[in-house]
């Protein structure tokens, strides 16, 4: 009896109902994992300790269908198609002045309270004004050398979503 059920699980009876069910599952899974919840593999230290250097996550895309990103929200930015994306924290919007002084991030001359930055930082960067239709993103791991860390302004349209967890 048990063997039969295992056999039926792997080799089900090929009825019309089975094909319809199978088709629906296939199409739904494709749409869900392609346009709604994109699987991604984290590879890099720029968001430590919030996210480890390696891990599995999903990019939840509907989040910005009816809303806009908020300051200090973690966002996923399309870097090269949907094959390579950047996991960063949004820190400034268009028209705002961004500056790093002795490791402290200043937005429009005011220090931003960043409880998520746990590692020591000594970055210095002169003031930059975020251009139109762009946002400024940076990772949480500021202990890396500034030249080794990918951060800066990106087109708003490149924000794909947020990590699911």
């Amino acid at each position: 009896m048990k063997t039969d059920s295992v056999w039926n699980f792997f080799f089900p009876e090929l009825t019309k109902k089975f094909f319809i069910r199978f088709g629906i599952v296939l199409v739904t899974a494709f749409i869900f994992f392609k346009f709604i919840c994109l699987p991604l593999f984290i590879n890099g230290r720029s968001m430590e300790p919030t996210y480890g250097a390696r891990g599995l996550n999903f990019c939840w895309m509907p989040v910005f269908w009816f809303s806009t990103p908020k300051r200090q929200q973690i966002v996923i930015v399309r870097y090269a198609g949907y094959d390579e994306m950047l996991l960063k924290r949004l820190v400034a919007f268009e028209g705002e002045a961004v500056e790093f002084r002795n490791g402290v991030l200043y937005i429009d001359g005011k220090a931003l309270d960043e409880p998520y930055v746990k590692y020591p930082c000594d970055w210095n960067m002169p003031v930059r004004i975020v251009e139109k239709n762009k946002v400024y993103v940076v990772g949480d791991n500021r202990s890396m050398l500034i030249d080794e860390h990918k951060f800066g302004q990106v087109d708003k349209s490149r924000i794909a979503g947020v990590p699911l967890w």
Partner: protein
Amino acid sequence: MVKYIIIALAVLLGACALWFFVFRSTDEAKIKKQFQILAESASKAGEETAATLYLKSASLSALFDDHCSLDVAHSFVSGSYTPEEVSSKMVQAHKLFETATMKIYNLTVRMDGENKASAIFTLRFTGKSKNGASFDETREIEASLIRKEGKWLFCAFKIAQVIER
């Protein structure tokens, strides 16, 4: 069992139909073919004989217009190259690398007129240099093509500047 064979045949038939529709000889298909040749000629699986290298460099130079511009923000490699220069650069690069694989994903072709087209794609370049260093770079690239004597030729490449400080 007969049913499974019928399904396998149906899947095979479907794949053939898909192949026919994807690769039929439209302008878009011809352009995609050029990209395929570009990726194959630029790649290196292992040791290459002088003849292989010569054939690859010849097929590569045949893909380019008389002057092909390369635009990489803030880089010395930006400039205009002739087909001979492109193939000579390729030969130099192949001598530096043990293995090199160029893969093109998410290729979207847009016709900008009867004899002009542009394409946007994700390029992944992986491999190992002769001194043992591994590399893995993924970039989003915009390309322009021009039709001359019925043949689509690359006339410009621009690496998308996604994130800028």
